[in-house]
């Protein structure tokens, strides 16, 4: 981690304690996470960009700490190209710290009842995947990550994760 810059203003919208969903768009993937898993949403343009060799796509400052940000592809694998433009960074609660995920769009669904979720069919299920459910929303298929599961998935990429 080098040359960590502090954003000029911290305009994170705190969504702590909410019970609805955040629906993230990453390429063609639409991913719903429990709103309570998120600490906030920030513009990707406000991030401190990572140096080229780093696994992290960038860093953000929040709650007195500097936290890593990751970019995933539609298969939830770490994205190799770092220069793709993103619009938002969702700060996820990860243990005692935070971890960021870049995405193209974020939609807030205020009520938990807005999604009728069902389990991923047994024949397609991977017990190690953060995604264990799915939902049909506006005639599109959303994948639903279990509580805190997406942050745990990102932490597997985070060799330099620092919760201090």
């Amino acid at each position: 981690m080098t040359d960590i810059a502090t954003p000029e203003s911290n305009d994170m919208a705190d969504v702590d304690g909410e019970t609805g969903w955040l629906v993230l768009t990453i390429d063609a993937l639409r991913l719903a996470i429990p709103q309570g898993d998120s600490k906030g949403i920030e513009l990707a343009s406000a991030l401190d960009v990572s140096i080229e060799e780093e696994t992290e796509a960038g860093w953000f400052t929040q709650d007195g700490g500097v936290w890593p940000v990751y970019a995933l592809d539609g298969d939830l694998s770490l994205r190799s190209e770092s220069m793709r433009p993103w619009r938002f960074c969702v700060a996820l609660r990860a243990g005692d710290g935070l971890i960021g995920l870049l995405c193209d769009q974020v939609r807030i669904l205020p009520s938990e009842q807005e999604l009728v979720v069902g389990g991923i069919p047994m024949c397609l299920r991977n017990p190690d995947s953060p995604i264990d459910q799915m939902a049909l929303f506006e005639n599109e298929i959303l994948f639903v990550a279990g509580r805190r599961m997406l942050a745990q998935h990102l932490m597997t990429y985070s060799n330099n994760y620092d919760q201090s």
Partner: protein
Amino acid sequence: MIKAKSWELTLGAKTRVAVASRHVVEFIRSPKLVPVPLAPIHSAGLLVWQGNIIPAVNLGQALGVGESGGSPEYVSGMVVLAYQDAPGTPMRHGGLTVCAVPEEVWVTDDMSCPLPAHPGGIWDLLALSCFAKDDHVIPILDVARLFSAALTARCRNVNAKPRKAALSASAGSGSEADVTIESEGPDGTDRSQGYLGTEVDGEGEWRVRVK
């Protein structure tokens, strides 16, 4: 002599299967499949069909059949199959991707033959029986099994790309060293993907280690 109507489904250049006619609901030429992240290798995705989400399986991919191998570019359509997990339970639906339009076939007792060999033992798992036709050996699928967890347990080969992993997340160590997940098969083959621990499939036991 018993004569039963079935549908013959092409999975690859040399691989065909059949299903009893009662299972076949619809053939969709260009299904709009949504890939499932980190799904098993035989996953073709999910599909919105008649207002519900149904799974789609690419059995050719699981079998690794010939040069076409069930690769998505060879898939020309999908057959929607109906099945019940047990008698009296609700009807369920799932899709099976195919490389050609299904063909009707009448099967008789005298066409019966042994199941073909497959190193993963997939036919033992998924086939009810088998018949021979035009130099092809054609297993008859147990459709309920096709859409159960059994195939996943047998394949245990996930689409996930090789990735770095934190030791603390998977191996209970506080080391800061970079680690990679590797797996090694009984023949020494490196898969470079898979689970930590031990996985067993039709080819034997695979040791998956942290390096």
